[in-house]
């Protein structure tokens, strides 16, 4: 017996708890551009659907009364990490055989994101250990709830049937368990998968989207109708995939479950004979575990990039130490120092009886033979020193506090920079189970950047070809605006949220000839500012595909007190805002 656990929304954000905030996430579709890939209940009630374009969703959310909205890019790496964390948790508590759903090289019916979104657990014969399968489901629901997710759970004979029921079954079906808060769960009795599958849509079979669309156009809307069709005709019209999927769901064809589990050399654990809170003993055990782990990894020329050490305590919440590293390392001393430094700062609430150490991310060790010339101050020693510094810093401050900034070429100042942790990054940033990220857009942008924007005739012709790309430009209105060689074009301090300014004599700024000028006097808090000089406007606007459109005219103003401020006029909503400070 197998169970499919479809954690439908691992990307759900804690921010959703805030009242009246509609959240939608978009992903890049190679053909249709930016599509909504997930949205919260509030957004769904306002009419946002998965698969619609960002502009449609934006216009729906714009008109919504008394609800703010937030449209952000979907972070597939974070999603993958959350799903594999959940898989490891399930492997600890439910079944040792956990698989993250395997992907084909095409999109399944009803799927928008090409990345795994479900967990498959082999729970054959495990029901008795939990006191029946309903208790097993309840235990799984508890795990989901602790992690803050809601999911759809199904237990069936085959993984195809469990997947189909979990994804497509109505919440009123016959096999539905007692609803457990927001988690829906079904248990299909042995041998009854055909009855359970028959009322479902074709999409429940994990077939190609085109196949499902074609069958719907032919009037075949449910699996029951599909089963009644002659098999020989189906193969010639739809290829062998459809029948294979049907057989896999019904149990007449076998399907291999690719297990997601850390390789033995990536994982070490120890059961303590006497549960203890003594730090010396724990430190000793950690050191022993680390030695085993590092020896195993270095035999495969691998080094640790992320390390998780879970200490299970007698009282339930297990304690976790997490390390992220800058470069793959297999140095026992280095890792031990970081780990013990973390152990010193943690507070144990009860005795520890088991320690599990897992290298959740590894990378190839790069060993370079030093040449005679660079023995003194070579590149390798500087990389080593840098890795030591960054590991130390992020070991104590936390991974998310030691960052590197990247330029995103986004026109909005607050999104022009993306910060990411320096440590624990995969080598080459490839996510397993997902095709390589497409770089086409990035190269187009970088090509465009080489030609400065001027309004010559030849460039207008090329601009029409790249209409979509050029709308994203940083629009320079006149030569007084920040020149690209001006080192003072951006402020050193940028407020996280722009601060509203009160313009003191608004009638002068509203006149048409003063539209390109900043206000003469404005008030911020209880301080009044007189503008002496100003530079601008520099118009920054986003394309419609970037979510809610923004148009702003930025000015650098010098006030009578000698301060330099970066203020802007919001051309869509009006009003003046203070965004940064030249300090």
């Amino acid at each position, binding site marked *: 017996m197998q169970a499919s656990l479809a954690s439908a929304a691992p990307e759900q954000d804690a921010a959703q708890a805030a009242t009246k905030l509609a959240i939608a996430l978009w992903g890049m579709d190679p053909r249709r551009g930016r599509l909504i890939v997930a949205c919260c209940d509030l957004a769904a009630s306002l009419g946002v659907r998965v698969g619609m374009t960002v502009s449609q969703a934006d216009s729906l959310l714009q008109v919504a009364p008394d609800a703010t909205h937030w449209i952000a890019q979907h972070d597939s790496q974070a999603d993958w990490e959350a799903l594999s964390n959940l898989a490891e948790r399930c492997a600890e508590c439910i079944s040792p055989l956990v698989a993250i759903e395997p992907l084909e090289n095409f999109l399944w019916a009803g799927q928008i994101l090409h990345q795994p979104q479900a967990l498959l657990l082999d729970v054959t014969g495990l029901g008795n250990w939990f006191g029946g399968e309903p208790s097993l489901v309840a235990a799984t629901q508890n795990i989901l709830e602790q992690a803050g997710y809601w999911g759809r759970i199904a237990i069936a004979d085959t993984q195809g049937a469990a997947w189909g029921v979990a994804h497509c079954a109505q919440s009123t079906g016959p096999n539905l368990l007692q609803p457990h808060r927001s988690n829906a769960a079904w248990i299909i009795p042995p041998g009854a998968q055909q009855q359970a599958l028959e009322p479902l849509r074709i999409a429940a079979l994990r077939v190609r989207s085109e196949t499902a669309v074609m069958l719907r156009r032919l009037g075949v809307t449910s699996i029951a109708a599909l089963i009644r069709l002659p098999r020989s005709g189906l193969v010639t019209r739809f290829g062998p995939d459809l029948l294979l999927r049907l057989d896999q769901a019904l149990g007449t064809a076998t399907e291999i479950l690719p297990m997601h589990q850390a390789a033995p050399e990536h994982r070490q654990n120890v059961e303590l004979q006497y549960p203890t809170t003594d730090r010396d003993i724990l430190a000793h055990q950690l050191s022993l575990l680390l030695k085993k782990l590092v020896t195993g990894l270095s035999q495969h020329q691998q080094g640790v990039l992320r390390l998780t050490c879970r200490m299970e305590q007698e009282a339930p919440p297990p304690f976790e130490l997490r390390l992220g590293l800058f470069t793959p390392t297999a140095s026992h001393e280095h890792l031990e120092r970081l780990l013990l430094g973390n152990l010193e700062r943690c507070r144990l609430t009860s005795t520890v009886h088991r320690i599990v150490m897992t290298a959740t991310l590894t990378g190839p060790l790069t060993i370079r033979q030093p040449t005679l010339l660079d023995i003194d*101050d070579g*590149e390798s020693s*500087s*990389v080593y*020193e*840098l890795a*030591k*510094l960054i590991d130390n*810093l992020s070991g*104590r*401050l936390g991974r998310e*506090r*030691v*960052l*590197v*900034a*990247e330029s995103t070429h986004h026109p909005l*100042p607050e999104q022009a*920079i993306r910060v990411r942790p*320096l440590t624990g990054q995969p080598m080459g940033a490839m996510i397993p189970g997902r095709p390589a990220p497409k770089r086409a857009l990035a190269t187009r942008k970088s090509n465009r950047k080489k030609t400065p924007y*001027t309004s*010559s005739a*030849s460039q207008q012709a090329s601009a029409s070809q790249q209409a979509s790309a050029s709308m994203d430009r940083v629009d320079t209105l006149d*030569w*007084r605006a920040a*020149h690209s*060689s*001006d*080192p*003072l*074009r*951006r*402020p*050193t*301090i*940028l*407020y*996280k949220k722009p601060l509203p300014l009160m313009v003191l004599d608004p009638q002068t700024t509203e006149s048409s000839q003063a539209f390109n*000028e*900043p*206000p*003469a*006097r404005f008030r911020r808090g209880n301080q009044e500012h*007189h*503008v*002496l*000089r*100003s*530079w601008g406007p520099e118009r920054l606007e986003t394309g419609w595909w970037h979510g809610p459109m923004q148009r702003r005219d930025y000015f650098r*103003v*010098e*006030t*009578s007190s*000698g*301060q*330099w401020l970066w203020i802007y006029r919001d051309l869509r909503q009006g009003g003046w805002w203070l965004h*940064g*400070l*030249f*300090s």
Partner: protein
Amino acid sequence: MNIERVRVRGSAPEAAGKTVEKPAVLQSLRQQLARLERSGNSVSEDRVSSGAAILDAMLPGKGLATGTMHEWVEHEGGGLACWLALLSARSALLGWDRRHHGRLVVLDREGTFYPPAAQALGIPLERLVLIRPKDHDELIWSADQALRSPVVSAVWGRLETLDDRDARRLQLAAEVGGSLGLWIRPQRALSQPSWADVRWYVRGLPPLSHTATKSSAAPSVTMERSSKRMEIRLVRCRGGRSGASAIFEINSHGQICHEPTPQQTPALPLVAQLAHPKSASKSRQRSA
């Protein structure tokens, strides 16, 4: 005093025999004084430019000594202290050819530091390590770690408060690592003692043309490109003379120059646009 005199005599043996040039004697005296003033034995002779010739001229070794701390105290009304410190950080990154992989560590407790400002100055983003400590203790600890590291050229951060023990700790760390500690301090720090080698006080000034016609309320958009008038004062300088001050202007090229003469007109780079050779040759072919 006697001891010093003996040392001076000892260090210049020629003095007894023949007349020595005055500058050489002064130089050796200054070096001795600097050695006496410093507590540790690791006196760094390395200097990096502070990023501007005007500021360098005010400093004893024509630059900032590595392995030391430097403070920029910002006037409450504003100034460009952060920006000037970044300028020094850039020259520290550039001037350190001995370690071509030097990094700039930015300690940003408030999370408001905007990296494009550094990028606009020519600091590559991949050489910048951004640290966001949670509290003051973490900030001091991170600064200590970063200053100690041999791959860090400069550490840049805002320090609202700094007690003597922490200051001494950071100073020792900078000596070990040979890096520059560049700190932005609030105006109230002026009344506190400083452990830094150099302390600047930066104040933004209103533009020249507006000092006379300050009463006019309407903003006049000047047709010149951005320029900023500032006053900088050397409040403290170890081994040099403090109290010097200068009024200068940062022009739109990021150069720091003395106050401009009023007749100066902004030079616009007007380059005639030439036809692209490829398209030109094509059109020639077509016409032929």
